[in-house]
């Protein structure tokens, strides 16, 4: 799309939306939010960029390709499950630090899992959107 207003706005919106997506991801432990929603927000930020400019440029400004994001995300999620296994509990048992942090809550494998979900959702959503957009 060729719109100066949208392009200018997108340049400022992209970092804001990414920051907001991380906020949503982190607060998801005890409040509404989480990896899935956060991932969708981040993916929509890049999707907006792809609408304002084009897919080619969006791929260039992304630090990591969507495919790799998916792979790393899945790997992180499964690692969070393996940590429980390594600690001698059944697979996926949550392991947490006892200290409470602001916003994030207790650090532990659920957060790691959520980050994995976050990356996977960005990766998969953008793979689909780019595939559909590039067909045109």
């Amino acid at each position, binding site marked *: 799309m060729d719109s100066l207003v949208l392009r200018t706005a997108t340049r400022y919106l992209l970092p804001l939306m990414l920051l907001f997506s991380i906020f949503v991801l982190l607060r998801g432990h005890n409040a509404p939010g989480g990896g899935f929603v956060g991932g969708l927000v981040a993916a929509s930020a890049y999707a907006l960029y792809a609408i304002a400019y084009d897919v080619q440029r969006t791929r260039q400004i992304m630090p990591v390709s969507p495919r790799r994001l998916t792979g790393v995300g899945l790997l992180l999620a499964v690692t969070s499950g393996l940590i429980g296994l390594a600690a001698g509990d059944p697979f996926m048992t949550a392991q947490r630090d006892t200290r409470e942090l602001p916003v994030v809550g207790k650090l532990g494998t659920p957060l790691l899992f959520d980050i994995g979900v976050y990356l996977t959702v960005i990766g*998969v959503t953008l793979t*689909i959107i780019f595939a*559909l957009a590039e067909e045109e």
Partner: protein
Amino acid sequence: MEVVLAVVIGALYAAGLYMMLRRSYVKVVIGLALLSYAASLLIFTVNGVTRGRPPLVPEGALRPPEPFADPLPQALILTAIVIGFGVQAFTVVLFKRTYQATETDDLDAIRSTEHHKKPGVPASISGAREG
């Protein structure tokens, strides 16, 4: 509330099935989407609609005050929606590719998987369906 939802669910299933019976595959995709919405709404309704009673345990108590909404159906629906999203995205891409390959969106025209055709082979031996 349940009665209204029941009617809506019935209408969704009916519309979904009707769309699936159409010959154009754009309509089939819409029909599939409607079917999965109907299923989600059904899970939500048959397990009891509770308003404004989140299943949160108040501080100091061991269980939430009765009656509270059952969180499990909502978790099921959420999972189903996420899966449905992925599957429908794939279906749209697949149908689009099929449209490009066959240059028709008429399901009745899609029959190349039904019989074996090859140049040089007489039609009479190309399987029983052509007989």
